[in-house]
């Protein structure tokens, strides 16, 4: 990354004083400010979740006992679960627990929320990781080949492909893939999840269709973005002219210079887009019956299991807030001009 920054004329004195000024470094202060700003946002998310769960008709006691339960039985269970306490007390108790590191227990199963999340998160994480790897492995070469000759035959085919992929709804793609690979060809399982300890191959097979359903729209989005950025850099940046003047071939310019710069932009967008991706996994996990956090969230909402919903929503919110922060940081790392907020004329 040294090729992008570190102006040669930087005074050496400034470098020497770097360690002592670390506490006052603008980047560090920026991170601190953003983390502090995230706290009220996360607080708002937990409050909103409580309000939403509280406003739903029925409660956990009713859902657990079913429609045949007498009001007395429901009341007894409500008292036992602490649901008869006022809203503010329940929220305060939960918040107090959160601050001291306890996410509470599921109203439905009595399991601790932390252990539920610990068993769900790896599934969702593996799914997202798999989808990410798939999309990057295809998107990056596709964008490079397109940017090599914009308007060429490969570029046109890949643009049509990526526009189609971008416009297909993940749940439609999921059903299409099930129909082709599970119903017609019968080569991949349509539903269910095999834990990695029962064989990694089986585990990856069971996640392949869900991962492709998420990855295809994603990779089309990435490929279009990277292609546009590569072409723009090739056409407008001085360093491209310099590299060409030094005799670098077209592939060398593309791979060694332009791609490095464009990759930052892509990573920024990947981070910004992470929240939307989590939303997609909810419906994909539902279709494929994967025991991930999205599936847990849907079940917990229908059980009115507020502590589990709170835990899952909090995970979602923290991931969104953190990935936005990472995106901002990467953005200023990519272009030092952004850090100082100046716009060179």
């Amino acid at each position, binding site marked *: 990354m040294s090729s992008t920054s570190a102006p040669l004329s930087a005074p050496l004195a400034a470098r020497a004083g770097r360690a002592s000024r670390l506490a006052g470094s603008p980047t560090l202060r920026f991170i601190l400010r953003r983390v502090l*700003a995230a706290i*009220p*946002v*996360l607080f*708002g*998310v937990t409050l*909103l*979740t409580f309000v*939403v*769960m509280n*406003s*739903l*008709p029925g409660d956990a006691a009713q859902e657990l006992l079913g429609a045949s339960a007498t009001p007395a039985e429901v009341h007894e269970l409500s008292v036992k679960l602490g649901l008869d306490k006022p809203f503010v007390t329940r929220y305060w108790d939960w918040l107090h627990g959160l601050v001291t590191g306890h996410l509470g227990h599921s109203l439905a199963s009595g399991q601790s929320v932390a252990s539920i999340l610990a068993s769900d998160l790896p599934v969702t994480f593996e799914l997202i990781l798999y989808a990410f790897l798939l999309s990057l492995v295809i998107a990056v070469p596709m964008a490079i080949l397109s940017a090599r000759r*914009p*308007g060429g035959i490969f570029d046109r085919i890949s643009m049509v492909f990526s*526009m*189609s992929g*971008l*416009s*297909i*709804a993940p*749940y*439609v793609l999921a*059903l*299409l893939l*099930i*129909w082709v690979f599970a*119903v017609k060809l019968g080569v991949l399982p349509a539903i269910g999840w095999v834990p990695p300890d029962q064989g990694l191959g089986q585990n990856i097979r069971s996640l392949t269709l869900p991962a492709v359903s998420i990855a295809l729209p994603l990779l089309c989005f990435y490929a279009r973005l990277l292609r*546009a950025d590569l*072409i*723009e*850099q*090739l*056409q*407008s*940046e*001085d360093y*491209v*002219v310099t590299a*060409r003047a030094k005799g670098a071939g077209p592939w060398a310019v593309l791979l060694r210079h332009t791609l490095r710069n464009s990759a930052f932009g892509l990573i920024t967008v990947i981070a910004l887009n992470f*929240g939307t991706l*989590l*939303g997609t996994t*909810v*419906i994909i996990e*539902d*279709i494929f019956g994967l025991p991930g956090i999205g599936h847990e*969230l*849907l079940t917990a*909402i229908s059980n009115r299991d507020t502590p589990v*919903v709170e835990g899952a*929503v909090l995970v*979602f*919110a923290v991931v*969104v*807030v953190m990935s936005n922060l990472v995106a901002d940081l990467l953005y200023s790392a990519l272009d030092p001009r952004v850090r100082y907020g100046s*716009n*060179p*004329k």
Partner: protein
Amino acid sequence: MAVTPSDVTVPGALEAVTGPSVGPRSRLRSGLGLWIPAGLVALIFFLCFVWPLIGPVGSPTGGNILEANLPIGSAGHVLGTDQVGNDEWARLLYGGRASLEIALAVNALGIVVGGLLGALAAYLGDWRDAVIMRVLDVFIAFPALVLAIAIAEGLGPSEVHTIWALSFFSVPAFARLARAETLRIRELNFIAAAGLSGTGPVRTLVRHVMPNIVPQLMTFALLGMGIIIVLEGALSFLGLGVPPPAPSWGNMISAGESVLSVTPRFVFIPSIALFVTVVSFNLLGDALRSRWSQR
């Protein structure tokens, strides 16, 4: 591909993206790139909103169970009938109407409410900016699906409630864009000129800032149409959007899922409609964006 360093000013300047040649052929192609998707969008609107009123389109509900599962091309039923005997073509058109109505309403709410909030936040600045944006951040960080489920279960699933649920998703997105655009425009000379000539803040905001950010919001809304149609389908697919027996593409796909291995057409027909509509809006949005950035 000619590199023209003389054009290069600020890296990332929009004019640098435009292609090297503007011959009659490329102009024709960019014209087609705009008018084909525009025509498709117009055709979809016509089919969903006007054709059921004037054409021979049956009722989307209340079909005869004896006519269930008729294949494509049956007499009187172009696309056949569904599992309970409703005309598939009629359901497709009325379902599209629901999708388009929801997408239009959600985007309109996004432009008006989100646009005003974002412009206001950027214009007022300081702590008011921070408060507005942090509240919107809560909604961005909150999983939209949870809100949608809450609204659907709390108020009952319906088209209007779907619009409310999805607006929590669109308003913050439009607000962010409007805020960024307003911050950019606020620094321009004509805003300073308006201030110097004694224009008040409200009038400046409404007469000078808003007209300049609306084109950006409109282009975003075209891409938003595709996103909202997909999301509405997702909600209906989970049984949280338009409630059956009223058709929507999402609940048609959902109903077809259970018989996917036997009669895949119940999934494929609404899926194709959904796909063609989203592609048309995306292509139109793309074409308009590149046209506006060329100017």
